[in-house]
């Protein structure tokens, strides 16, 4: 079965091409049917491959020749490892549901078919990235994923904010991509190959064809460069700013970006190329610190945001921080496990949020929501499950994975990271339940009419919610002591352990649960029972912190002042120089010649006889000079 893995990305590609051929006026039903069937077929094949890998372990990569450069060959191909078999299954599963969900959400949009084209291309790119056997191919699909997010975030192109958000998403991730670009090119220069296996061998032996840097420093350099790429895609601080803005895209896109396709790519890359990072303790430390900072930073911002999607978006950034932190402390299994569980409950949260937004006419501000539980019971239930999973309440999925990350952080001896993680967990529980209480309980604070018309979405939207809820409940059990850590054994492919694995510490699990419950409790007091007035707090002693969080720590403004403005100014200055100095010198020559000729032209008086006289004098002078030169007449 493994040799058929190429089918998985092929399905969405074929679907994309079909939809492209059918054109933008294709019927909605046909469009959806093609897309969902393709994704579903991919999901089924993924499941088969998953079971195959489970039984037989990883396969060797299948490659074909792509380009010859002198004696070297660049190849493309695919491979199946436990990690990417897991990713394939998750991506296809969530994609199928998102495609289904979009039928309800995008119903009636003039560019419905185009939306599905982009989605299919997006899924194709992500699947292609996942099954890549070499870094070059990863980079190719990596960029394509970025392109698709650009297209989808800017799907409503006529909205200036959407256009700006799309551009920002592309450029900010591209800054990271250049890091990855340099990283893989350096790897090629040093090892002569892009293939994972060859690269890992070279990194283990520390034999590099590079002389301007010591092998150890080279490893750290390359690992950090590649991590910069992952930072861009996985929205790690300080390259996180694009992700919340990407909320301008349609909600199903957000679900796909946040759960399965775009942001997962960064974590996946670090996990897949883990031997490179493992070879450099320094790089791992940097990764852990960045992850920890991101986790707490985004959680703090999430506390005060009022846009339902933005809160969930910041929770994504925060959770990605967890995953990256886990990789930084070598908790490989915990990180990949959280990647999987997070995919389920985050897709769930987004789709549930989408369902809410859809029901109340595309309003996203939670200050104008409230009391929707009665109107949207199913959405409410599923959102609650997602929120519980995100908060890390047992037995929901997030509990098991988050617990292992905290464990890894603690055992690695880096207590700071552990404490950061705990605080972030508290904040996470607080803000997601703030959203829950403000949305589903209390009185509706928007227009009455909207509330009257609000109703539960159709089955194409609720079925994905229910399926994801089930996964958000049970997925965590895969790596619990109850199943004897089945996930770990699977992800290591029956071979050696990658990174570090620790036994479950029950006191830690209890502590994490208590912290999360405390967050929920505080949220309850503030937004449900109203025994603490949040506004009084925000305008009172905590006002500076509130403003800081509400304005996202002014990072965007800082970038604007510190980077965007100066670069544009440099551009203007250079353009000025180009126009008046570089071209100015050219014009100076031209003008000089012109002015000179303005004076000299009067010698051209049109009198032929004058010309003749001048010629005569000239000739005589020349003859005289020539005779003088040869020594006169003898």
């Amino acid at each position, binding site marked *: 079965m493994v040799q058929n893995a190429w089918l998985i990305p092929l399905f969405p590609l074929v679907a994309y091409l079909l939809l492209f051929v059918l054109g933008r006026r294709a019927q909605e039903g046909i469009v959806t049917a093609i897309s969902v069937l393709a994704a579903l077929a991919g999901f089924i094949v993924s499941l088969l491959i998953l079971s195959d890998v489970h039984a037989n372990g990883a396969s060797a990569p299948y490659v074909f020749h792509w380009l010859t450069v002198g004696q070297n060959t660049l190849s493309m191909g695919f491979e199946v490892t436990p990690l990417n078999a897991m990713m394939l299954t998750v991506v296809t599963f969530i994609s199928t549901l998102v495609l289904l969900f979009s039928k309800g959400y995008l119903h009636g949009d003039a560019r419905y078919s185009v939306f599905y084209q982009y989605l299919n291309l997006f899924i194709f790119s992500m699947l292609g990235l996942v099954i890549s056997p070499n870094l070059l191919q990863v980079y190719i699909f990596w*960029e394509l994923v970025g392109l698709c997010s650009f297209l989808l975030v*800017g799907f409503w192109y*006529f909205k200036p904010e959407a256009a700006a958000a799309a551009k920002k998403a592309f450029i900010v991730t591209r800054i990271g991509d*250049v890091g990855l670009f340099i990283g893989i090119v350096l790897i090629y220069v040093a090892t002569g190959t892009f293939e994972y296996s060859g690269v890992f061998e070279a990194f283990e032996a520390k034999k590099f064809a590079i002389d*301007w840097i010591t092998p150890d420093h080279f490893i750290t350099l390359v690992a950090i460069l590649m991590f910069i790429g992952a930072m861009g895609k996985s929205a790690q601080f300080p390259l996180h700013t694009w992700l919340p803005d990407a909320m301008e895209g349609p909600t199903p896109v957000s679900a796909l970006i946040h759960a399965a396709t775009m942001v997962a790519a960064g974590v996946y890359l670090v996990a897949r190329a883990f031997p490179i990072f493992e070879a450099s303790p320094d790089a791992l430390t940097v990764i852990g610190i960045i992850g920890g900072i991101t986790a707490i930073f985004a959680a703090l911002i999430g506390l005060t945001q009022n846009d339902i999607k933005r809160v969930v978006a910041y929770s994504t950034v925060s959770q990605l921080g967890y995953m990256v932190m886990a990789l930084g402390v070598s908790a490989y299994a915990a990180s990949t496990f959280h990647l999987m569980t997070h995919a389920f409950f985050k897709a769930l949260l987004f789709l549930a949020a989408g369902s809410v937004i859809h029901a109340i006419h595309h309003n996203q501000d939670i200050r104008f929501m409230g009391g929707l539980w009665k109107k949207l019971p199913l959405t409410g239930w599923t959102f609650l499950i997602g929120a519980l999973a995100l908060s890390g309440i047992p037995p929901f999925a997030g509990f098991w994975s988050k617990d292992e990350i905290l464990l890894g952080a603690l055992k690695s001896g880096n207590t700071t990271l552990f404490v950061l993680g705990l605080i972030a967990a508290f904040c996470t529980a607080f803000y997601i339940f703030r959203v829950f209480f403000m949305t589903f309980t209390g009185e509706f604070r928007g227009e009455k009419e909207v509330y009257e018309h609000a109703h539960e979405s159709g089955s194409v939207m609720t079925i994905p919610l229910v399926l994801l809820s089930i996964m958000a409940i049970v997925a965590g059990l895969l790596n619990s002591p109850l199943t004897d850590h089945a996930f770990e054994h699977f992800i290591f492919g029956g071979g050696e352990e990658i990174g570090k694995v620790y036994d479950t510490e029950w006191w830690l699990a209890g502590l994490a649960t208590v912290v999360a419950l405390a967050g929920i409790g505080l949220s309850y007091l503030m937004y449900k029972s109203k025994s603490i007035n949040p506004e009084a707090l925000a305008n009172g002693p905590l006002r500076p912190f509130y403003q800081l969080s509400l304005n996202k720590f002014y990072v965007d403004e800082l970038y604007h002042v510190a980077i965007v403005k100066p670069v544009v100014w440099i*551009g*203007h200055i*250079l*353009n000025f120089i180009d126009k008046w100095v570089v071209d100015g010198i050219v014009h100076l020559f031209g003008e000089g010649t012109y002015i000179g000729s303005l004076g000299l032209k009067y010698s051209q008086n049109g009198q032929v006889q004058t010309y003749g006289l001048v010629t005569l004098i000239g000739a005589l002078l020349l003859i005289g000079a020539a005779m003088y030169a040869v020594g006169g007449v003898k």
Partner: protein
Amino acid sequence: MMGNLLTLIVFLPLLGALILGFVPRSNDSQPKAVAMIATLLPLLFAGILYANFDSGQTGMQFTESHDWIHIAHAFQDKSLVIGYSLGVDGLSMPFLLLTAVVTFLGVLATKHMHRAKEFYIWYLILVTGLYGCFLSLDLFLFFLFLEMTLVPMYFLIGIWGGDRKGQVATKFLIYRGLASVGILVAFVALAYKAAMVTGVMTMDMIAITDAFAKAPADVITSSFKQGIFLVLFLAILIEEAFFPFHTWLPDTHEQAPTSISMVVGGVLMKIGAYVLFRIGVGILPDAVQYFATLIAVIGVINIVYAALVAMVQRDWRRLLAFSAISHMGVVLLGVAAMNQAGLQGGVFMTISSGLLSGLLFFLIGAIKERTGTTIIGALGGLSKPMPILAGFLLVAALGSLGLPGMSGFISEILAFMGAFKAFPVLSAVGTLGIILAAVYLLWAMQRTTYGPTTAQLEGLPDARAVEYVPMVVLVALIILIGVYPSILGDLVNHTISSYVTRIGG
């Protein structure tokens, strides 16, 4: 048949120009038809050549060689031999195909012109010059063809250009005329030195290449080679519009009509790169290596400088001109690396930049035709009235900023794979261009096609049937090279390999 195919390719356009001389001036459609045939036939022949081309071979193929000018005792005891010889190898084949495609599409892209007959006559003469440059195996012949591109361009800009056409045409002529002087001096010096080895003052490229390769160090000193190369390199900098000799290019693109912009950006300015590969790397590899750092520095300056300047341009055509300069900087960087990946990346980038320039200038021309402007700030929301053109603009912009799956990416990564080996720090600075390209191209593209549609842009017509041909052909080629680069890589691989083995790197 095969024997004279190259001559046919070179002179069919000229024949077309001759025929056009007899077409009555009043008729508007006939000149275009003639021009179309006179460029389509070479395209077909180039296709035949491509099909029969043996990419496993390093030498020249389909050669034609005749004695042309023979002056006994022209220089002391050495006689001057100038031949009429044409040929293709793995290096010139991509350039030949590029010329064939872009010049044909240029005719298709030409809208109704006043004085159509004259326009096409000049255009066809220009095309002959372009073909000749890439196919000549004789330096003298090459130079003739190079000059043959100069004069038609002067009139094409000067008569059919924009509001500053006179000034820009003169600027173009003077700049490129200067470049010609440099090239001529270098050529004569090359031939003169080669004559010291072979005993005959020949202008034949192959003979000169051989002579330089096997000449003892005391006959052709390395300082002499470096001297020639500097002169040649200066000419290339002008020819190829590199900073600080680039200012003719934005002006030319801004003023020239669409089809001429396509040909200039697509083919004409690539002659400089071709000379750099053929003469610089081919005949004077040690000099290139000697000046490698200088070349790389100039390359990086161009990448970053042009990208920064492009960022603040108001006119699409000026922006694209600077974008092309920035891209060609990557070529310099790749050449400076003087290794397989770098050189191959340089050729890839040259071809890719040619195709992308052709496409982008065509699209901007189409937009100008509809909206009457190329000022980026005056456009907006074009996705709504013209989704097809907007879609192609998106694809072209993405290709130009180096999105994988299109030709720009593979060129960039190959060039950098070579460059990072030789100049890690400089190359790292050069990668700034990758980010900046995304910034200015996305900004301009979004400003044009995204956002709300203003009232006067509402209801403009989308692409016409005939406009699909250039767009689809160019996009198909760009994607083909991006997805399956071997189609271009296999052509150049062996020729580049032979260069690389010659320098022992």
